[in-house]
């Protein structure tokens, strides 16, 4: 008997008991919806937490914070060279701050902030992005942070304070013009004995950094090249342009003056692929470096959520198993009711395996219908939960829930797992009735004695 005909036969039989079949499909659909909704909470929370962690951070990034058991714990150029020589390393970015509060002037506007020294070639490889302009090509070119313009305030030499109470620049003092192409005067200072000396370095603004991904982040820094830093160091006579104040204890002053190496405060290694992050991270940890990557954190979070999701799917599976009792009952009733028909079919030459297959198709069909309807219902519930729950919680606790926070999330794998579990469970529950159907005695069935 062809599969198409078996399926047609099954559909005909199911139409005879629409109410019973509907109730069985409903029970299965409820079981499936329960499984999916339950597990979707695990998936949703994991997704939201992971997104929160990975937001603004590259998965391929490994941050190196220093070295263990070394006299000199800072990261030096030798370390950078070692990192760059490792397999699967795409770029090694190193940032350091000019070790004093800089005074930046653009025409008659001025701001105070940090000058961050970056290696532009490696930053470009790592994916440093601009919102406007280009990256520096000459030594005296710089990139400014996205919010640098916001921090510039017109200075007229009078006592009138140009800032609001919250630290923002008053509207009438704000810089309104374009910054790209403008000359920025970078002022640094140093002491010679008791006397304060200052020097201004003129650099040209060629690019503006990309807006930080988080709303609360603020980037008023300027990004300068190592060449500019060298010039600053030549003036201050100290690495990183550190200021040696007259009141600094003599011991500390000696230490500072003896220090020759530059230390890189923010070192990040970028792997060529997420897959290789773990290997690189383990290699440098073996070499006693303090390294951290999001992947390390993700591994722990994913392990916890794997256990949580497995538990939720297990509980959901129990609901499907309970629904399968209904399928077993329905199929047993179907075999009993159709025993005369089964007897006639066997009498004229139906193979027992064909009869068994027909009943198994019927039970799996019920399971499949239940799984499909259950999945649709679960999607609707998920939409409802993600829309309604933030409103309820923010009203109840008075704290706003982040807009992109998902309490429930259904990845494609979840309905597929559910349909798989449902099919296995329903086939198993239909197996015994199907076997019973093959054992129907022809003569008893035709005499309506079964």
């Amino acid at each position, binding site marked *: 008997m*062809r599969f198409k005909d078996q399926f047609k036969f099954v559909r005909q039989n199911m139409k005879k008991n629409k109410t019973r079949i509907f109730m069985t499909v409903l029970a299965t659909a409820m079981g499936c919806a329960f499984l999916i909704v339950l597990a979707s909470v695990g998936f949703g929370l994991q997704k939201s937490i992971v997104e929160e962690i990975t937001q603004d951070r590259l998965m391929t990034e490994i941050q190196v914070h220093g070295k263990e058991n070394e006299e000199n714990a800072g990261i030096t150029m030798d370390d950078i060279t070692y990192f760059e020589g490792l397999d699967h390393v795409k770029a090694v970015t190193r940032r350091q701050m000019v070790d004093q509060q800089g005074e930046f002037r653009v025409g008659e506007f001025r701001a105070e902030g940090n000058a961050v020294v970056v290696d532009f070639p490696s930053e470009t490889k790592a994916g440093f992005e601009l919102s406007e302009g280009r990256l520096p090509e000459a030594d005296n070119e710089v990139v400014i942070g996205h919010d640098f313009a916001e921090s510039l305030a017109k200075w007229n030499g009078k006592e009138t304070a140009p800032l609001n109470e919250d630290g923002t620049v008053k509207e009438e003092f704000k810089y309104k013009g374009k910054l790209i192409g403008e000359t920025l005067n970078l002022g640094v200072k140093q002491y010679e004995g008791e006397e304060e000396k200052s020097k201004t370095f003129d650099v040209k603004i060629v690019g503006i950094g990309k807006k930080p991904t988080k709303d609360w982040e603020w980037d008023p820094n300027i990004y300068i090249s190592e060449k500019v830093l060298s010039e600053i160091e030549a003036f201050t006579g100290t690495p990183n342009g550190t200021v040696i104040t007259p009141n600094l204890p003599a011991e500390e002053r000696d230490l500072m003056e003896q220090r020759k190496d530059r230390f890189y405060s923010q070192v990040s290694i970028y792997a060529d692929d997420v897959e290789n992050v773990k290997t690189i991270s383990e290699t440098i940890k073996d070499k006693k470096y303090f390294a951290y990557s999001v992947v390390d954190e993700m591994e722990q979070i994913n392990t916890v959520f794997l256990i949580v999701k497995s538990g939720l799917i297990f509980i959901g599976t129990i609901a499907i198993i309970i629904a399968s009792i209904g399928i077993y009952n329905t199929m047993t009733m179907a075999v009993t009711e159709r025993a005369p028909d089964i007897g006639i079919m066997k009498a*004229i030459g139906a193979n027992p395996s064909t009869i068994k297959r027909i009943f198994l198709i019927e039970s799996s069909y019920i399971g499949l219908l239940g799984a499909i309807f259950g999945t649709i219902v679960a999607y609707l519930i998920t939409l409802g939960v993600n829309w309604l729950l933030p409103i309820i919680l923010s009203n109840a606790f008075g704290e706003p829930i982040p807009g992109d926070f998902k309490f429930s999330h259904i990845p494609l794998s979840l309905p597929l797992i559910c349909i798989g579990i449902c099919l296995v469970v329903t086939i198993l529950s239909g197996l015994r009735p199907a076997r019973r159907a093959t054992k129907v005695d022809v003569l008893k069935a*035709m005499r309506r004695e079964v």
Partner: protein
Amino acid sequence: MIEVKGLSHQFKIGKKGKETIIPVLEGINLKVDYGEIVTVVGRSGSGKSTLLNLISGYIQPTEGEIFIDDHNVTSFNESKWADFRLHNLGFIFQSFQLILSMTAFENVELALTLKGVHEKERKTQTEKLFKKVGLEKFMDHYPSELSGGQQQRVSIARALILNPPIILADEPTGSLDSDTEDELLDFIKQLNHEMGITFLIITHDEKVAKIGDRIIEIVDGALVEEEYAS
């Protein structure tokens, strides 16, 4: 074509361990040749239906062997019996044994469906056969909407649909009135003459018995008399 050798059968009744054995058939030997109509007669409980059920493979003999077309069918398992029945035997039952939830057309088509014939071919063959049995106007009727005679014709159409060389009939006229009975017997004779189908018919009706080329009587489970029709 059909050869029965030393066939015996016993029924066991009662609870397990306390069963009573009732012998039904004892040492039956029978041979039915190609194109013959053989009728088996006997009183109720004589064992004639049991003989037909054994030849149909619905029950297994306690002793003896049955050969159909040189196949020793007594060695067949259930699956092999099913295939053999589908391809070699047609069945006509006293109470028609039509599936009530299927139309007359679907009942006749069922054997073709079980054999795996394509839908289009099934439709052509089934419609052709309905014309042959004179029921082309009743194809879409359910069995409950047909008379006894019409139901038996549908049953015959189902038996004929796969062109079996042998048809086994158990009291085929048992549920029919006299006129319909005559019509059916004429149809059986016509099928035998035109298509050469072998019939083994179980009956207690003398009129039916007389259409046989040979009449066999079973008394108390033993074949006691064999009479050739004149």
